[in-house]
Structure formats: structure tokens, C-alpha cells
């Protein structure tokens, strides 16, 4: 989504789902994994909205849906492609929106084409991308054809590209009956392409955990942009986050490739701050483009000031040297690959349990044995912490020194978490942690202080540690308020910004006031405005009422990044004159009298593109301010695997790619090619998923008796047809085998799974829940023992959701 809109987060928020006219849940099972979201789905349905559930199996989401369409795991692009084709072929798109807010009118390099499933030349596992660019005029501005007739314009390319995805062809790939596919397309497009209507897509890991996960999302983006559904109430593409603070932890970039605030992690080539800025600050020659990322220098400088305080100054390039520079991919799979090779000697894990949650978990468990030391911080004895005594191993052979540190639970510490809808919400401490348990912040603080002490006496390159700004109070407990304030940022000197005077040490009111000269510090520019001189904005507790806030923005509840904007890209909810597409549920509207936007915090306060008389407003800016060109990308050249989504089969697939000769995504990295199964030996498609009653790798729920009671065992679900073929009865023990491992679980035989017909071939699919492991009250084998080490070309997210296996009955089960 970042490649399309500029940001990767859920565009709208939970309450806003109620404003939708059509909700498509695809690649997620929100009723089970984000149960309370259905408060708003149900509300929308009661207001007449239709709910569409697209899933390989009939889930609890499907059970309350108006339309259910099965699809074979990993074929979203073909499915959505057919919907896009239906919309384009029948001209059921919101044309004015598309012209105003997207790059549909942009002219693409005339040599760009798709041939044999490839978008050009692939060299050393990557596209050369030489044709993935827009035609530019003499002034450096992209050439456009707002009539959308130029054959090189994005719109025409799209039409051509998706024409191949007719219902019948798509159905052969997805296994969705043509009737269901048509019904979904007609309903979704019919309900949401009109300006006053909106449709939303709710997706999660079922979309991303594929070798073409990013392109799956891209297909949603294209559909939603054509429908005019981005930025509007009840619209958007809503990435449903699975953890309470996976949004916040991503915002703070506990990831190898970015640093807090989604700033790029410097690479070895960025040899100085200037080089870094030259490389990463986007530029535009179009005066109408706000190009918000042009503020890069302010954000990185403020971050360096927050990290190294007084020790970061102009004289030392703001301590830019202290930041580690990467020049490889250090993502999850690379990490465990390196650990397996013995490169990594020590590991710290805070509440993560890769022994259950990682792909090819068996190999991840083995890799842990190569560590000299492991520090695991958790509330429970997790599989990862106890990897050295897992079944089938001899602890004496494992020479890893393991520290298992008792952590405080969420009710036992104070701080904020950011939900999927980007709301930063403050949590209070209800009681102290039990026994010696401490908050992670306490532990980080102690370790940091200890390290500073050690490095003060010398060591390799001690400067970044010794000089690290680390002042979170003098008490036993570090003060989370001080951290929150540091994240928001302070003025580091008396100064005047945008006509307002500030004193040194004052909290910064919003990121618009950040400076690139070291006058401000801000640990994360996105959170600048979260904790200001007005107080802790994240702790606000005023719920709005429907009368004053008909679309449920709840602007006075907690705080939402960026700058309390509840629906991002909301300038796209209005036409070029600033009038909302949907007057019955406006997000923002331009008040000509006051000369400002009303409603939600707009994506920048500039006036709309056109004045009431239809003339251009010179002060205006385009709506997608996070993109250098100011428009949402129907055509997205920045991705690694193509500017347009194209169907490829999952790495392990039971069928050939019916769309082209190119079987898989051409630019993926396969870590262990010898462990890839073929469909002769492993004819069954497998996918993994979660259930309401457990959470992620399970430590937080399999240790809770009430939840262990609800789902006590690991299981694999399969169709009655497949079970009959294999002689399996409900409740039998079965073995599921892949080249990576074989695991034993219970079989759930259910009509909720149905075999797929793919060009006349019957393909069976089974589904495994993956929460289980060898620790806790409820124990069972981990489905991730089976999953392959291969990931998305862009994000390196592993392909958990589609792989091949074989299933065999091994014993009578315990059906009561």
C-alpha cells in the first residue's frame, strides 16, 4: 500500500466500517481474528450493507456473510482481477475520482509491456525495471491524458492487462464457481462504484503471507481506487493488525529496513547524512504535489537528536555514523538462515516465539541451538525459551545459555499501544507485576545502563552506546511518560517556527514544526503531536456521540497518527472542488467562507484543486501527499515484482499457472530449494490460520485455562469428500507431511471445506491452525513445522498460506 498511497497502514479505522455499503472480507477472517470489528460490520449490514466473505473455507465470517465465495489459497489476484475486469469492461468505475486522485491519466513508457508473464527483463533475480516509468515533459512533470484515451495511459494499460482476467479464466484458477465470482463482482462493484457509495476491503495475513502478497494488496488497491473508495468514509483498504501493538512496533520500526517513523535504514552506500538524504528524499517538479516526504531531512535529524541528544550536532553529522548501515536483507528468514549458519551468536527476543511462529519452525528451533546465548522475555515459558528441552532433543547437546526474564503483563505497566486503526491509546497500570516480573521497559533500561557502564570502560566503537541519550528518570522504574515525550519530541533550543515561538525543552505541537537544523528532537515524527504541552493526547477518553459525529471519527478519544487524522488520504473523499462525494457521510468538506477544511483533520490544509468556478487554484495540492507525484498509484513502479499485479501460482502449487508460462513470482528468493514439494508427491493444498480463542504463537492463550478449554487441541480441517477418499473420520489422528516435516494432529471433517475444480482437476485443500506448540496447558504440534522458507518478493513475509502437503490417517480419534 505504501507503494500505492504512501503509507502502509489501515486507511480507515474500526468504527468507520459501519459507514460502508459493501464489505469484502478477503484474506482475513475478521469475525474470528478481529471479533469486535464485527460490531461495525453488523451495524453496516443492518444499514443495508452487504458482507462478502472470500475464503478457502467457510468460516465464522462466512457464517454471517450475505455472499460466500470459496477461493483456492493464493489466487487473490485472479479473483480480484476478474472483478477489476468486470468494472473496467462495463465502465462501472468512479471516473472523476480516478482522474482526479489516481495516476490513471499518467502516460507510461511506451515500451512497457507484459510478455510471458514478465514485465520486462529479469537479471540476477530482479527486474531491470527500465520500462517501468512515466513519460515526462520538458519541465520534468509527468505527462497525462485526462481523457484516458491514450493507449499508454495507465487506465488503458489496466484495461488491457485485466481483460485477460475474465470470469471463466479466473474461475479456473481460483476454483470459485463462476456464479459466485460474478455475484461477488456485481455486488461489490455495484454497491460501491457510485460516488455516494463506498465499499471496503478487510484483509490480513491471508493476503500478505504469499510469495505475491504485496501484489495481492495491489489488486485490492486498484479495485478500490477504481471504485473511488480510498479516503472516504466506509471505504478504504483495511489491513487488520493481529497484535495489540504490531502497528506501533512497526511505526517504531523494529525491522531491519526502516528506522522509527518509516525512515529508511541507511545502507552502506549512504556514506554521509547528505548522501542518505540525497538518496531517500523524494523529489518532484510538479508544483501541485505537496510531496510530504520532502521533509525527510527534518525527520531524520530530529530522530538522531532524540537518539544521541547533545552528542548529535552539525559537527558530527548529527551522529549519523552511529546508525548501523545495512547492505543486505536481514529479514526474519535471513535471520534464521544466518543463525543456522552460526553467524548469529546471541539473540534477544521480547515476547516473540519463533519456535512456533516462524516458517519451517523445526529448522528455526534447530538454529536456536547454534546460539551462544539467548535472552527471552515473556510472561510464560514459551516454546522458544524452552527450545533446548523440546520433545526429541537431548538438552545436554545444546550449549546455548538461556535467560528467561519474567515480564510484566499489559495490566501491570503503563504505556501506549497503537491499534490497527492507528489509534495510540494509553494503558494504565492496574497492579504491580507478580514476584520479580518487570516491564520490558525496565529490562531495556537496566541493560542499556549496564552497557553504558561497560562501554564507558572501553570496547569496540563504544561511542553510540556511551553517547546514547538515555534519561528516563531516576527511579527504579523508568518513566514511560518521559519516553512518550521523547518520542513526541522537544525543542532543543529557543526558536520560532511558522510564526510561533517556542522555548527550549517545550514539547513539539506537531511534526509540521520539526526542524532539520537540530533545533528539534523527535524519536518518531509520526508520533509528534501525541504528547504535547496540552498533555498526553493518547490518554484522552471522550467518546463522541452519533449526533455530533455521524461517521464515528471519535476525534477526542485517544490520539491517532498522523496528527489525529482518523481517515488517511481523506482529501480524496472530495471532488476537485472540495465537495464530498458522499454528502451523507462526509469525512471532510472545504468551507469556502472560512477558507479551511471541516471534519476530520485533512491530509494537509491546502485548498482543493479547483475553485468553485472551475479554475485551478494555485495554492492547491494533490490529495495523495505522501506520494511524490501526489496521486494514488494504479500503476506502481516502485515494487520489485511488477507495477501491476499479475497472477502467479504459489511456490508450491498443485497446478500450472493458467495465465502464463511464468509459474511463480519471478523475483522471489527461495531459501531451501531442495525442500520444495511437488504436486505428485504432495497433492493437497494446505493453508494455516488462527481461531478466535487463541492468539498468535499461543503462549498468551494456551496458558489461560478458559481459552485452553475452548480449543484444547491442534487440528487440521478438511472436506468430507477428501476425508472419505482417505478413510478419515472426524476426530481421527492424521499425519500431515511436507518436505519440511511431518506432524500429527486431529482431523476435523467438515462441509465447510469443499474441493476445488481447476480446469477439470479436483484439488483438495486442508487448513491447519498454527497456534500450537509443546508448552502451555493446551499443547499440540506446530503447523509451522510444515511451512516453506520462501517469502514475498517485496516484504519477505513467508508464504504460510499456500503450500503442498499429503495427509494420512494414523489412528482412531476421540469423538465423544
Amino acid at each position: 500500500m505504501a507503494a500505492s498511497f504512501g503509507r502502509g497502514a489501515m486507511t480507515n479505522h474500526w468504527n468507520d466500517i459501519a459507514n460502508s455499503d459493501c464489505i469484502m472480507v478477503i484474506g482475513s477472517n475478521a469475525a474470528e481474528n478481529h471479533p469486535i470489528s464485527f460490531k461495525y460490520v453488523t451495524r453496516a449490514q443492518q444499514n443495508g450493507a452487504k458482507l462478502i466473505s472470500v475464503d478457502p473455507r467457510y468460516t465464522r465470517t462466512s457464517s454471517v456473510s450475505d455472499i460466500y465465495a470459496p477461493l483456492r489459497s493464493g489466487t487473490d489476484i485472479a479473483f480480484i482481477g476478474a472483478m477489476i475486469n468486470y468494472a473496467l469492461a462495463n465502465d462501472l468505475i468512479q471516473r472523476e475520482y480516478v482522474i482526479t486522485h489516481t495516476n490513471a491519466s499518467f502516460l507510461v513508457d511506451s515500451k512497457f509491456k507484459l510478455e510471458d508473464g514478465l514485465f520486462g527483463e529479469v537479471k540476477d533475480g530482479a527486474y531491470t525495471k527500465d520500462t517501468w516509468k512515466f513519460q515526462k515533459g520538458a519541465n520534468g512533470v509527468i505527462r497525462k491524458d485526462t481523457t484516458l484515451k491514450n493507449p499508454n495511459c495507465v487506465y488503458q494499460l489496466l484495461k488491457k492487462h485485466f481483460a485477460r482476467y475474465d470470469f471463466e479464466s479466473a474461475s479456473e484458477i481460483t476454483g470459485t464457481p463462476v456464479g459466485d465470482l460474478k455475484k461477488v463482482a456485481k455486488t461489490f462493484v455495484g454497491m460501491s462504484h457510485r460516488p455516494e457509495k463506498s465499499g471496503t476491503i478487510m484483509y490480513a495475513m491471508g493476503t500478505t503471507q504469499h510469495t505475491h502478497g504485496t501484489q495481492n494488496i495491489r489488486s485490492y488497491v486498484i479495485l478500490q481506487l477504481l471504485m473511488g473508495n480510498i479516503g472516504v468514509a466506509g471505504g478504504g483498504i483495511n489491513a487488520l493488525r493481529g497484535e495489540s501493538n504490531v502497528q506501533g512496533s512497526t511505526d517504531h520500526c523494529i525491522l531491519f529496513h526502516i528506522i522509527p517513523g518509516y525512515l529508511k535504514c541507511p545502507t552502506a552506500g549512504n556514506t554521509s547524512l547528505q548522501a542518505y538524504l540525497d538518496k531517500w528524499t523524494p523529489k518532484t517538479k510538479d508544483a501541485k504535489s505537496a510531496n510530504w516526504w520532502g521533509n525527510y531531512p527534518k525527520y531524520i535529524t530530529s530522530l538522531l537528536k532524540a537518539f544521541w541528544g547533545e552528542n548529535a550536532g552539525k559537527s558530527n553529522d548529527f551522529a549519523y555514523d552511529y546508525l548501523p548501515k545495512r547492505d543486505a536483507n536481514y529479514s526474519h528468514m535471513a535471520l534464521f538462515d544466518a543463525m543456522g549458519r552460526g553467524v548469529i551468536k546471541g539473540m534477544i527476543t521480547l515476547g516473540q516465539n519463533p519456535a512456533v511462529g516462524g516458517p519451517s519452525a523445526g529448522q528455526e528451533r534447530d538454529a536456536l541451538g547454534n546460539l551462544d546465548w539467548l535472552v527471552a522475555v515473556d510472561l510464560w515459558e514459551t516454546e522458544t525459551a524452552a527450545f533446548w528441552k523440546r520433545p526429541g532433543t537431548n538438552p545436554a547437546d545444546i550449549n546455548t545459555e538461556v535467560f528467561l526474564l519474567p515480564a510484566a503483563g499489559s495490566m501491570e505497566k503503563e504505556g501506549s499501544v497503537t491499534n490497527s486503526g492507528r489509534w495510540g491509546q494509553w494503558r494504565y497500570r492496574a497492579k504491580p507485576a507478580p514476584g520479580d516480573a518487570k516491564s520490558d521497559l525496565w529490562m531495556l533500561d537496566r541493560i542499556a545502563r549496564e552497557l553504558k557502564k561497560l562501554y564507558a570502560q572501553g570496547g569496540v566503537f563504544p561511542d553510540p552506546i556511551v553517547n546514547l541519550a538515555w534519561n528516563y528518570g531516576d527511579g527504579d522504574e523508568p518513566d514511560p511518560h518521559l519516553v512518550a515525550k521523547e518520542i513526541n519530541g522537544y525543542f532543543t533550543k529557543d526558536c520560532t517556527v511558522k510564526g510561533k515561538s517556542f522555548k527550549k525543552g517545550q514539547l513539539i505541537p506537531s511534526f509540521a514544526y520539526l526542524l532539520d537544523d537540530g533545533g528539534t528532537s523527535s524519536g518518531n515524527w509520526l508520533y509528534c503531536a501525541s504528547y504535547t504541552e496540552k498533555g498526553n493526547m493518547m490518554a484522552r477518553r471522550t467518546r463522541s456521540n452519533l449526533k455530533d459525529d455521524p461517521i464515528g471519527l471519535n476525534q477526542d478519544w485517544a490520539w491517532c497518527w498522523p496528527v489525529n487524522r482518523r481517515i488517511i488520504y481523506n482529501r480524496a473523499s472530495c471532488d476537485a472542488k472540495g465537495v464530498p462525494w458522499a454528502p451523507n457521510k462526509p469525512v471532510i468538506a472545504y468551507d469556502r467562507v472560512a477558507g479551511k477544511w471541516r471534519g476530520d483533520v485533512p491530509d494537509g490544509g491546502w485548498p482543493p484543486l479547483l475553485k468553485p468556478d472551475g479554475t485551478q487554484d494555485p495554492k492547491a495540492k494533490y490529495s495523495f501527499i505522501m506520494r511524490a507525484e501526489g496521486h494514488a498509484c494504479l500503476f506502481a513502479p516502485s515494487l520489485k515484482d511488477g507495477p501491476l499485479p499479475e497472477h502467479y501460482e504459489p511456490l508450491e502449487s498443485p497446478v500450472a499457472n493458467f495465465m502464463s508460462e511464468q509459474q511463480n513470482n519471478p523475483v522471489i528468493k527461495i531459501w531451501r530449494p531442495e525442500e520444495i514439494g511437488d504436486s505428485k508427491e504432495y497433492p493437497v493444498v494446505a493453508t494455516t490460520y488462527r481461531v478466535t480463542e487463541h492468539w498468535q504463537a499461543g503462549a498468551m492463550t494456551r496458558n489461560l485455562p478458559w481459552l485452553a478449554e475452548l480449543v484444547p487441541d491442534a487440528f487440521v480441517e478438511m472436506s468430507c469428500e477428501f476425508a472419505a477418499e482417505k478413510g478419515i473420520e472426524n476426530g481421527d489422528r492424521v499425519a500431515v507431511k511436507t518436505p519440511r516435516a511431518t506432524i500429527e494432529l486431529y482431523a476435523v471433517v467438515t462441509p465447510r471445506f469443499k474441493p476445488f475444480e481447476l480446469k477439470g482437476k479436483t484439488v483438495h485443500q486442508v487448513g491447519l491452525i498454527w497456534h500450537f506448540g509443546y508448552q502451555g496447558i493446551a499443547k499440540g504440534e506446530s503447523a509451522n513445522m510444515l511451512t516453506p522458507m520462501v517469502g514475498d518478493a517485496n516484504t519477505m513475509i513467508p508464504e504460510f498460506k499456500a503450500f503442498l502437503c499429503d495427509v494420512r490417517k494414523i489412528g482412531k480419534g476421540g469423538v465423544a
Partner: protein
Amino acid sequence: MSRGVLVDTTLCTGCRGCQVACKQQNKLPPEETTFFAKAGGYQNPADLSARTYSLVTFNEVENKNGHFDWVFARRQCMHCEEPSCVSACLVGALSKTESGAVVYDETKCIGCRYCLLSCPFGVPSFEWEKTVPFVRKCTFCFTRQAGGDAPATVNGKALDSEQRARHKETQTKPACTKACHTGALMFGEREELLVEARNRIRKNPKRYVNHIYGEKEAGGTSWLYLAGVSFKKLGFPMHLGERSFPSYAKAAKDGVPHVMLGVGAMLGGFYWYNQRCAEVAKKGE
């Protein structure tokens, strides 16, 4: 004014928040289960018990429109309008309150289990494993219902009037109905819920079968159900009839003083008659 709950199974997503909220409200111990307590998995535990006052049932069925459906219903005490258990209890440990709840007072119970036997819905459970066992069942959270004011402070701050009203309203609801996010469990006055249920059926005849379970069953219950499939498919007892079970017992019980008189008179009469016969016979001699 008797309260009840309208369970609209068509709105339930089966998240089981209500089931666990019930456990947390009553601090019920967990049960050791296996996944296959009931065919189809998921539904767990298999049945209500002294540790499980409420249970979401999972039903893979064909709905009234002939489509496959996964329907989630709910079992707990139905809080009958005329409860068999109350009629049964010989120490008055069970009683129907005016607010609708059928409540149990464990200080009286002797553990005879007549309430278990008599319940049309198989609800009350006995703590079989204990040496001093009690009967356990859904309380309709009557302690919550009887609750008073909202808390004085949250996070040490006083609540405003809007917040107070909200807190008061939700904390006097049964825990399950508070937990429910989709509105599948609707708490209110029984009469109003019946009106609501009839409206829903009328407005959406395709969605619902024309039957409000609990309106009349065994004399009516405080908990009412709507569904898109026949209640039989959801495992509800269908043969209870509309007459309340206690009415049978009441007929028998009301006869007691009459029997006492009648039998006495009859005995006296016979005695007198026989004595007269004997005297006459004696005189005859």
C-alpha cells in the same frame, strides 16, 4: 416487569466472548476438554456443567433457504416464566425473582437434584466431583442486575454524567449480554423483546423462521431466540408444549387439603358404616 434476553442467532459470529465473560464474571474453574467433545469440533465443552453456565453451540446445518450455514446458538438457563426447578425445590433454594431471574440460594440446598431432573432444558448442573456439592447454573447475573451506581472514578478521575449513565447501564446487564458486540444478545424487558423479535421476523421474513423460541415453550422463558433455521436443527427441545410443567404439579399440589378432607370424610364414613353394620349384626344376634 420481567427482563429477558433476545438471542438472535443470525447475528452471532460465534466468538464466544459471552461464554468466557460468563466464566470470568462467575470465576468458574476451567474444564479439561478435548477438541472433539461434540462432532464438528469447536463447540467446547460439550455440555453445560457446574463449571460452564453458558455455552455457545456450533451447528453445521442447512438453513431455511437451502444453503449450508454454520449457526451459533447458545445454551444457558432459560429463566422460565414458570420454572420447573422452582416448583421442584423442596427447600425453596430456587426462586423466580420479579426481575425475571431464576436464582439459587446455596445456603438452603440439600443436593436432592430434583431441579436437574425437572428442568425442561437440561440446565442445572451438580458439582458431582465435590464432597459438599451444590447445584450450579446461570444466575442471570442477578447481582449485577441489582447493582447500583457507576464507579466513582476510572484512572483516578471522576466520570462525567454521560459516562456514569453508560457505566450504570452496562454494569447492570448480565455479563454475557454486555460482552456481545454484534447485538446477538439483547437484554431488556421481555415484553419489549417479544415486540422486537416479532418486528424482526416481519421485516425480514427471509432471514428468520417464524418462531420465537421461548415465547411459549413450556409456558415461556425469559430468554428468547430467533434463528434462520428450524430450532430443531440447533438442538433445541421441540416437544415441550406450551403448558408450563409446574402447572401439572400445581394441580396435584392444590389437591392436598382437599384430599385431606376427602380421605378423612371417606374413612370416617366407612368406619361409621362398618361399625353400624357390626352393631346391627350384634343386635341381630
